[in-house]
């Protein structure tokens, strides 16, 4: 029964993928979209069933299908582990996934390759589910690379545009840098404990008497590099903003709500490893904090509506890693969930706007859309309030917990996280004011066609906005359902259950005031003073540095990409030809010797006799001398 349920869960999206690949074109757009949506919806229903089962029994379900890879001391099964963590992830992957599929039926309707779009989305869900429910690291790795592939396919969905193809390629390759880290981490763990299976590994670590902690830390660090790739942390984050080249539903599903949280999932899954690697935890916290700040500063000045959201995603992921670094896994998971709600809503909202403006993404050409697109406006407003940490919206609770955790461990990192949060509130409301308030700044043509999107687009928005509002209820301070639900996963009991004392209330107040301050500045600048960001060529000074993302892409190009390419040309033009000439040279030497030897064969008997006698003398004298 459990095996069947797990198989239905995984295979339905795969079936959807296959149907759309082989028959999608002939089925027509609406049918192919419906098939894709239903496939994911079925997985969602199965996830609900599993959730129900797990909350009632409290026990995880293990399913082993068959032996996969046999390595001398490692036996790797193709197996699934459905426990609290994986089922929680399944719920929002398939739940939000269904909504975004539904949304895409309308959003992608004008695209001639709509069936392909749905097949890739289904394939993505298949791999994402595999990633989440794998019972060992290698099954996770199937999903891990699989979602990377789908991300590649979907970023480059409009493949006539080589810039988009570049972005897709960049995403894949940067992820692979992380993947090498993940592989090495697996190798170390495999050789230390002879297993990659989570459950066995947990027991092995708990039972080990003489743990080689430095080696285990190295493994944890390598795994974290993998997480950096997938979850877009410094130094491997630059692919995510470029990934916005993909259609907006893709940005919502893959590059905001689900795939990019895989790194957080993996670290949480292996909490028992990271708990022992305290140095690595500090690294994670610091990287997370810095990423959240750096990305937030870049987000301050971006004018492309999706770019703002992309940097915001990087920044929010950084906050989640900040929590992970302190071992506060449940806090990170909480923020993953609320973030999935409000960020998916924001991306889908921005998609609705872009759709309404026929592809316009530059906020300088927007404005005043509030009246024409009320549902989009209100849902995005709610989500912006949530991400800004305005009280009682979901993001308020989760972000507050992260900052609270940080405060208890490290004041500097708390400050960094708080500043990033204030900036978040600012750039989100900058986005809101520029997009929805004041006068419309686009063309007359666009103005004429302004309209609210259809119900397939607005319904997912409304549902997500509701979730973004009330999602915080799953983990209220002092009374957290989520913490209790996840408790069986963690060896350390959540450490500090924050008692709501004066400090906590003060911090909460500070955070709220910070958020409101950010909103206020945005209000003054973009509503009161009616500023519109400058045209590209007029941006100067610090803004220019930020606008150009600190020139990190340029630096990477100069330091890594260009040298490898020059080296390639050098090898091709010099080393290869040189080696080739060397081999030919050996042949030429042989030729030359033969040529010289030929000259000895003159045909003169006298010379032959002379040499013969000479040789005889040499042999005789050698024999005499040797005696």
């Amino acid at each position, binding site marked *: 029964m459990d095996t069947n349920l797990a198989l239905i869960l995984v295979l339905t999206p795969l079936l959807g993928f296959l149907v759309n*690949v082989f028959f999608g074109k002939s089925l027509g757009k609406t049918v192919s979209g419906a098939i894709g949506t239903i496939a994911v919806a079925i997985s969602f229903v199965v996830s609900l069933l599993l959730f129900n089962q797990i909350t009632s029994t409290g026990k995880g379900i293990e399913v082993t299908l*068959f*032996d*996969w*890879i*046999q*390595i*001398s001391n*490692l036996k790797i099964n*193709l197996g699934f582990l459905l426990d609290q963590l994986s089922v929680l992830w399944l719920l929002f992957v398939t739940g939000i996934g269904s909504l975004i599929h539904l949304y895409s039926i309308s959003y992608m309707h004008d695209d001639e390759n709509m069936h*392909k779009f749905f097949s890739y989305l289904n394939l993505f869900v298949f791999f994402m589910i595999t990633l989440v429910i794998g019972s060992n690291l*290698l099954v996770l*790795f*199937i999903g*891990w*690379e*699989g979602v990377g*592939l789908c991300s*590649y396919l979907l970023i*480059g969905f409009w*493949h*006539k545009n*080589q810039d988009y*193809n*570049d972005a897709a*390629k960049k995403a*894949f*390759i940067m992820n*692979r*840098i992380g*993947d*090498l880290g993940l*592989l*090495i981490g697996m*190798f*170390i763990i*495999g*050789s230390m404990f002879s297993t990659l299976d989570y459950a066995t590994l947990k027991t092995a670590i708990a039972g080990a008497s003489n743990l080689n902690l430095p080696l285990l830390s190295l493994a944890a660090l390598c795994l974290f590099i993998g997480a950096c790739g997938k979850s877009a942390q410094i130094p491997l984050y630059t692919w995510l903003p470029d990934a916005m080249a993909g259609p907006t539903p893709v940005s919502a599903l893959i590059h905001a709500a689900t795939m990019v949280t895989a790194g957080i999932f993996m670290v949480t899954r292996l909490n028992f490893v990271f708990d022992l690697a305290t140095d690595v935890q500090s690294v994670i916290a610091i990287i997370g904090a810095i990423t959240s700040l750096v990305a937030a500063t870049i987000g301050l000045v971006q004018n492309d509506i999706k770019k703002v959201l992309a940097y915001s995603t990087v920044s929010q992921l950084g906050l989640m890693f900040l929590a992970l670094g302190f071992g506060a896994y449940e806090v990170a998971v909480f923020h993953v969930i609320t973030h999935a709600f409000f960020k998916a809503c924001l991306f889908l909202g921005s998609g609705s706007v872009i759709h309404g403006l026929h592809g316009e993404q530059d906020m300088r050409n927007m404005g005043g859309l509030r009246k024409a697109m009320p549902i989009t406006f209100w849902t995005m407003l709610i989500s912006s309030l949530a991400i800004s940490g305005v009280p009682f919206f979901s993001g308020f609770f989760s972000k507050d917990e992260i900052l609270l955790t940080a405060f208890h461990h490290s004041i500097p990192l708390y400050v960094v996280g708080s500043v990033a949060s204030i900036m978040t509130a600012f750039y989100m409301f900058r986005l809101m004011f520029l997009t929805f308030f004041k006068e419309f700044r686009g063309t007359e043509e666009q103005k004429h066609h302004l309209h609210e999107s259809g119900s397939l687009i607005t319904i997912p928005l409304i549902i997500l906005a509701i979730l973004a509002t009330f999602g915080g209820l799953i983990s209220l301070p002092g009374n957290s359902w989520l913490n209790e639900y996840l408790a069986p996963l963690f060896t350390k009991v959540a450490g500090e259950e924050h008692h709501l004392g004066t400090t906590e209330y003060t911090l909460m107040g500070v955070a709220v005031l910070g958020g409101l301050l950010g909103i206020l500045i945005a209000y003054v600048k973009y509503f009161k003073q009616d500023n519109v960001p400058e045209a590209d060529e007029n941006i100067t000074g610090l803004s220019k540095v930020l606008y150009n993302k600190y020139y990190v892409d340029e630096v990477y190009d100069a330091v890594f990409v260009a040298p*490898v*390419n020059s*080296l*390639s*040309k050098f*090898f*091709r033009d010099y080393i*290869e030809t040189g*080696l*080739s000439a*060397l*081999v*030919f040279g050996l*042949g030429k030497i042989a030729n030359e010797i033969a040529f010289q030897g030929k000259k000895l064969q003159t045909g003169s008997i006298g010379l032959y006799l002379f040499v013969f006698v000479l040789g005889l003398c040499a042999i005789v004298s050698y024999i005499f001398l040797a005696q």
Partner: protein
Amino acid sequence: MNVSTILIILLIGAFATYFSGDKLASKVALLFSLAALGCSIVLLNNYSAGENISVINSWITQPKISFALNADGLGLAMVLLTAALTPIIIFSSFGNEYKNAKAFYGLILFMAFAMTGTFLAADGLLYYIFWELALIPIYFIALIWGNGDAEERRKAVVKFFIYTLAGSLFMLTAFIYLYTKADSFLIEDLYKLDLSACEQLWIFLAFFLAYAIKIPIIPFHTWQANVYQKAPTVGTMLLSGIMLKMGLYSVLRWQLPIAPLAAKEYMNIFIALGIAGVIYGSIVALRQKDLKKLLAYSSLAHVGLIAAGSYTLTLDGLRGAVMQMIAHGFVVVGLFFAAEVIFRRFETREIDALGGIRTQSPKFTSMFLILVLASVALPSTFNFVGEFTVLYSLSHVNIWFAILGGTTIILGAYYMLRMFQHVMLGETNSKTFADVSLNEGISFVVIIAVLLFFGFYPKPITDLITPSLENILQVINKN
């Protein structure tokens, strides 16, 4: 039935093809190659059932040379690889016209015959004869039916011929020396020899020269890219899909067990050489202008990793190497076929002259992309299983070997996706690109099916090769 049956089928097939005339040649060749495949499956079945399918007949008495064919799991795996790829290669050529087709297809079968013999021979001299025999057909195939400027082609092919022949002579010398010691060429007698470390080193190096040129391992690879480019695609497939595995296979079968002390003493150097090939090949591949040359360098990178795995002298390393040999055999044949499919339509392999094919040919694009992904070892393809196992074994020797060898997953993705982007993506090409025909599709689908099936379920192959690899390791570790 014993393993000589398959050799007989292939040899008769070669002649039958030649005498069937130009019109029928391709079909007759396909038929015989399929018969050989069927035969090898039956043999595999019998072998699994415990039947003795080896042959040993005395052949020449002075010096003692026997007609000895020994099929164990490793040998059978390689025979199966040859038997499975040959019909695919023949079938993939159905879209092309060849002058003097009877000779062309006859030579293909003759080459399959010689390569199969190489994988089965259990007598050093017999093995050497098969080894050299395999060189002759590919020499003519590349020389006569190749492409590009005739004079340049002749230069490249002759260089290849002499280079590999010269390398093999060192191997022959080693075998003669071994004969003076063992008074036999039989592999089991050679395994039993008790050679000094110094002798082993020389023998190891003599073998190495032959294999390093054939595989090829840098810096002995200079013949490769040019020959791959100039040979007709069928020849390139035979070379890269099967023939280079002769070298890798021989490392496991002959070099390591006969000279284990040298192998142990210097393994780090040879692993390093293999890994240097991975990095060097990948970097050179990045900036190739010709699609076939790019694939040649990618092949150089992949076999470097296989060689590195072999020289770890661990079960994982050997097993990963063999699996990767098989996986690479299939994927590289598929990729060269993709290059051929493009050439049939656009008559160029110049990467910069391509692009914008995807919009015109969804089926071809999907198949090509799957092969590209298999080549970069995406999990769920067989290539991942092999590469993961090899890298894992390297990490046990030295974690740095795994890290440096592991750069293949980054660099490989870089050059392959870059190639794919420039060849397939972008604005629709002004020239029309017809999507794959049924015949072309079949070849792709078979290859892809094999790669995906064993990607999820490699157990049959693991079970087949493990006992023989354990035997080899036992010989290596006898002291």
